[in-house]
């Protein structure tokens, strides 16, 4: 909502400075978004006369004009306007002036080799109207004496742009803002002094609101003004509209706009002669069409509130009028509409047709139902004054009367909610100044809500009014008590934070990427999940929710590789989606690593990052998070976006519960298709929701401390075993032989080829044997030794290498 202090003073008696006003507006909830000085520099625009025109030597369409800018100074100006002619009085902008329309600063410029000192301006360039065809033409009778003087009469006050919250339609009118300010002790609201129409003439155009379901128009007031002469608005009215950044059009239109802004009363003016036998306000029928004042053709659905005549739709009530019945400069008879439309109906229709107008903006927030008369009076009076004519009586049709709202307000509620006190007397002053009618009972007020406040319906709304006007700075700070009765994080949240930092500590940079992604990437990683489309995405590249974090990470990894980094690890912890219902999401920690280890190191041999690097990251992270790696079970069934031979999945237990993690090389086909330029790309996904949470807190997880100081013995074995037997199985067989004696198992060599038979491999294992109870004798060791060989051979079919 744009206002000026000058306009505000039409309604508010005050002599306070503007900076105090700005402070007060923000303090009472009418936030000042910006202040703009529209008139700054406008005094340099001069009334000037073209004394001579010549054709431009190098351009057919341009003219070189000698312009009298006052005091016998002649300036040469190049001008392209067809109406630039000798004797024309127009508006001249000197170099240095800033053109209001496009805010560009004029400079002395050579236009096709002829130097132009300044510019002759069109009305459009001066933000006076939309007229951009030709330069401004000023009447010589009026302006001949003014040549050399400033064109803009007086500098207008600053343009104040307020951000009005949607609950405050009353402040979409200058008077409403003035009323709020007066309640807050900033000036006094001036009484309304509009004269009432005195007329004996009947309004002869019949108006009918049809009674039907969901009728969006509850009342329709009108008055007919005959024999008018529509004209340019007088200067005061033009100045007023220009001062808030609007362009004057014609007196009738300007007056309706003025009334709307002044008292938040939208009006519509029809050319009465274009209405075919009366107005019918009704619901539209599907397929009806009309051309609106924005020159667009709208096709209507069933049930939109339209103003129509016998020929059809004239306009959408409260939203936009139609071209067929619009007023023009030659309009003789005007029908003025002042109606009340239901906010929901307005919103529904405007949303469906995607129309946004000043009227719609106001009606959907709620217009004062009792302002119909005031609006008609104010506008009709001005039309008569400016355009002449005769005004009829006001006609009001309605299907529903306004119901006065009454609220019981217990005065103690104020302190209960705000924590501070104000006196009953103060409350009464504020509420009455805001327009409430008040009846004071012992413990409460009976409040009659002003008709311009649709937002006020219950007690809490009254508290808001009182605290807002008395000032939020009065709310006392109650310092919080440092006391905790509940854990801040639950076990899942703790695990989340732990995993996040555990992965980061392994050299991964944490990324946060959008939850939606490009289906082109997502298709590779969605697995068996269904695609979840966003109906109205920002762009088609962000059209689906991610089924996997890889969809984003792989793309960003590729971008980073293109930036020239060669070795990089990134990860993200966040949601992936498997359905479009709330909750159909999992939390995943997803990491991606590219390139080499020890690239260009003087001391270490460089190598491609590989699946066992990523396996370490996964395992170490899980171990750090408290899971026992001895119990982990790994197999090679992983989703298709991993390399089929170099990937696996991790279970926390051999019982094959839910998959705790996948890890592996990204499938070479994907790397190729997506053109990712790296020597190696490996990744992992840890599924937080599949990790069982520890049942016991850390303090109870520590078991009894027992270590053995008896001598330990390390024995090495080399088995030749079928390639298909996994090392995990081999190790598991050994560790199960005697958990008390076998304290550690290490795989120190795996070898294929050479003298090893095809489809077999040699696995070398070091086993640590140690007893908690005694020093083992050679005999004991020999026994265990033989048992290991025998058991492994029996169960796995392996052969010990001799």
């Amino acid at each position, binding site marked *: 909502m744009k206002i000026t202090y000058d306009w505000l003073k039409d309604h508010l008696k005050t002599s306070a400075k503007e900076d105090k006003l700005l402070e007060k507006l923000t303090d*009472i909830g009418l936030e000042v978004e910006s202040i703009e000085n529209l008139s700054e520099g406008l005094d340099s625009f001069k009334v000037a006369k073209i004394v001579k025109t010549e054709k431009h030597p190098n351009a057919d369409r341009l003219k070189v004009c000698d312009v009298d800018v006052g005091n016998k100074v002649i300036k040469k100006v190049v001008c392209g306007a067809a109406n630039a002619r000798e004797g024309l009085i127009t508006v001249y902008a000197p170099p240095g002036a800033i053109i209001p329309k496009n805010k560009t600063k004029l400079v002395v410029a050579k236009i096709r080799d002829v130097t132009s000192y300044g510019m002759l301006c069109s009305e459009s360039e001066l933000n006076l109207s939309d007229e951009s065809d030709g330069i401004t033409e000023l009447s010589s009778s009026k302006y001949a004496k003014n040549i050399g003087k400033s064109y803009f009469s007086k500098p207008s006050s600053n343009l104040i742009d307020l951000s009005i919250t949607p609950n405050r339609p009353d402040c979409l009118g200058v008077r409403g803002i003035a009323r709020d300010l007066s309640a807050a002790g900033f000036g006094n609201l001036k009484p309304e002094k509009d004269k009432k129409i005195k007329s004996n003439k009947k309004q002869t155009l019949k108006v009918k609101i049809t009674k039907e379901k969901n009728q969006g128009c509850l009342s329709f007031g009108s008055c007919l003004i005959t024999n008018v002469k529509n004209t340019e608005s007088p200067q005061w009215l033009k100045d007023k509209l220009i001062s808030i950044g609007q362009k004057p059009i014609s007196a009738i239109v300007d007056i309706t706009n003025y009334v709307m802004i002044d008292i938040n009363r939208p009006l519509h003016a029809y050319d009465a002669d274009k209405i075919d036998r009366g107005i019918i306000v009704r619901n539209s029928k599907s397929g009806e069409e009309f051309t609106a004042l924005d020159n667009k053709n709208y096709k209507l659905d069933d049930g939109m509130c339209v103003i129509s005549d016998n020929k059809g739709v004239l306009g959408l009530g409260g939203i936009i009028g139609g071209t067929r019945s619009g007023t023009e400069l030659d309009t003789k008879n005007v029908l003025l509409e002042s109606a009340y439309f239901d906010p929901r109906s307005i919103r529904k229709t405007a949303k469906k047709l995607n129309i946004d107008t000043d009227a719609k903006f106001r009606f959907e927030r709620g217009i004062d139902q009792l302002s119909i008369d005031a609006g008609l009076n104010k506008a009709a009076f001005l039309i008569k004054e400016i355009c002449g004519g005769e005004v009829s009586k006001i006609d009001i049709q309605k299907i529903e009367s306004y119901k006065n709202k009454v609220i019981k307000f217990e005065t103690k509620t104020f302190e209960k909610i705000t*924590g501070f006190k104000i006196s009953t007397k103060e409350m009464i002053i504020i509420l009455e100044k805001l327009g409430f009618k008040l009846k004071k009972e012992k413990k409460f007020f009976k409040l009659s809500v002003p008709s311009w406040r649709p937002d006020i319906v219950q007690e*809490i709304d009254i508290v808001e009014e009182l605290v807002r006007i008395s000032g939020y700075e009065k709310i006392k700070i109650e310092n919080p008590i440092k006391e905790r009765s509940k854990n801040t994080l639950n076990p899942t949240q703790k695990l989340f934070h732990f995993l996040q930092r555990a992965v*980061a500590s392994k050299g991964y*940079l944490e990324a946060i990427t959008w939850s939606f992604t490009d289906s082109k990437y997502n298709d590779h990683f969605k697995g068996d999940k269904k695609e979840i489309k966003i109906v109205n995405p920002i762009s088609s590249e962000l059209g689906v929710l991610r089924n996997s974090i890889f969809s984003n990470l792989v793309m960003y990894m590729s971008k980073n590789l293109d930036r020239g980094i060669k070795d990089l690890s990134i990860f993200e912890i966040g949601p992936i989606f498997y359905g479009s219902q709330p909750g159909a999401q999992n939390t995943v920690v997803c990491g991606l690593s590219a390139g080499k280890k020890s690239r260009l190191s003087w001391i270490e041999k460089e190598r491609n990052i590989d699946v066992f690097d990523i396996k370490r990251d996964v395992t170490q992270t899980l171990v750090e998070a408290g899971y026992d790696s001895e119990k982990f079970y790994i197999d090679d069934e992983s989703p298709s976006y991993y390399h089929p031979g170099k990937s696996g999945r991790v279970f926390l237990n051999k019982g094959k519960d839910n998959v705790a993690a996948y890890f592996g090389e990204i499938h070479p086909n994907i790397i190729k298709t997506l053109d990712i330029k790296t020597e190696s790309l490996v990744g992992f996904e840890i599924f937080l929701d599949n990790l069982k949470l520890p049942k016991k807190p850390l303090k109870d997880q520590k078991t009894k401390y027992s270590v053995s100081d008896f001598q330990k013995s390390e024995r090495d074995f080399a088995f030749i075993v079928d390639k298909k037997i996994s090392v995990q199985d081999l190790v598991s067989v050994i560790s199960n032989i005697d958990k008390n004696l076998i304290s550690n198992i290490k795989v120190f060599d795996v070898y294929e080829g050479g003298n090893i038979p095809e489809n077999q491999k040699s696995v070398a294992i070091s086993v640590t044997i140690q007893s908690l109870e005694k020093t083992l004798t050679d005999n004991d060791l020999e026994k265990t030794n033989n048992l290991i060989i025998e058991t492994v051979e029996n169960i796995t079919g392996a052969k010990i290498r001799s």
Partner: protein
Amino acid sequence: MSEIKNIRDQFMSKLEGDLSVDQINEIKTELFGKNGLISSKFKTIGSIPETDRKKFASDLNQAKDELQNLITSKISEIEGKKINEKLEKEKVDITLPERPFVRGKVHPVSQTIDEISSIFSEIGFSVEEGPDVENEYNNFTALNTPDNHPARDMHDTFYLDENKEVLLRTHTSPVQIRTMLKDKPPFKIIAPGRTYRSDSDQTHSPMFHQVEGLHIDTNINMGHLKGCLNYFIKEFFEVEKIKMRFRPSHFPFTEPSAEVDIGYEIKDGKIIIGEGDKWLEILGCGMVHPNVLKNVKVDPSKYQGYAFGIGIDRLAMLKYGINDLRAFFDCDYRWLNHFGFDPLDVPSNYRGLSR
């Protein structure tokens, strides 16, 4: 007697020469070997006359000790020299780089969430969460924002179905609804998380982060709200004093509502929080609307309290001097590395939010 002295003097001076370990060992044998000069003198002790014997033995022992000590020290001197020579040869250029290491980082938004959680933990809030995909009821209707409400225009919503019933949450406020439906009052929670609006330009990202706060009890008023936020802002920005301004505003789900500005100034191109006369809006808050409480079956005549919503990314930008919101989600390794935090820098109450 002078014989012992002679041997001693002779060999003492001999040992002072530039000798190798082998030569010293030879001398050692010559003196202390089976038939060494000193050894054989010891054998003669018995034949020394009684009167002289004591002195003889004493002199002999002294000479022996002196010689032996000198031999030992000579040997260790030579060996020490040898070792030093060896170590000198082993010397490396210690300025060569260490073996390669990698350093990971935690995203500034994650760090900020941990900081926020740590601060609110201290005053008794616990953390709640809700899903990113929400139904229209939890995101709007239950929050006193019915279908026809113009306030919905302020939220450019992503929808997952044509009927506009399922959407990506536009704020973290639906967690209020979920929490209050799930449990019984009192409530004292914060809910950080991802939020979405179909707005994308230089200062808007279609995904951003918010933290919701909710405190409902029998007697919680606007003074508590002000106190809580005053405490939070001071702790978060790690400043002694802050300038804070409560400004009336409107949100359908709170009444009275406020927007909170903090005072700042720009010094040498850097933003200084808590000083100066410029205002910066950082959050919205208010007393939970009775209609919202009714919607979640909490009796508004018994319970009341406040709620707030803060933009996390914005806080991180202010605190850590980050200019561009879009860069948060662009995953440029240079940015992540520059603005990220060491994973060991866990914000906590006892060690403070940051180093």
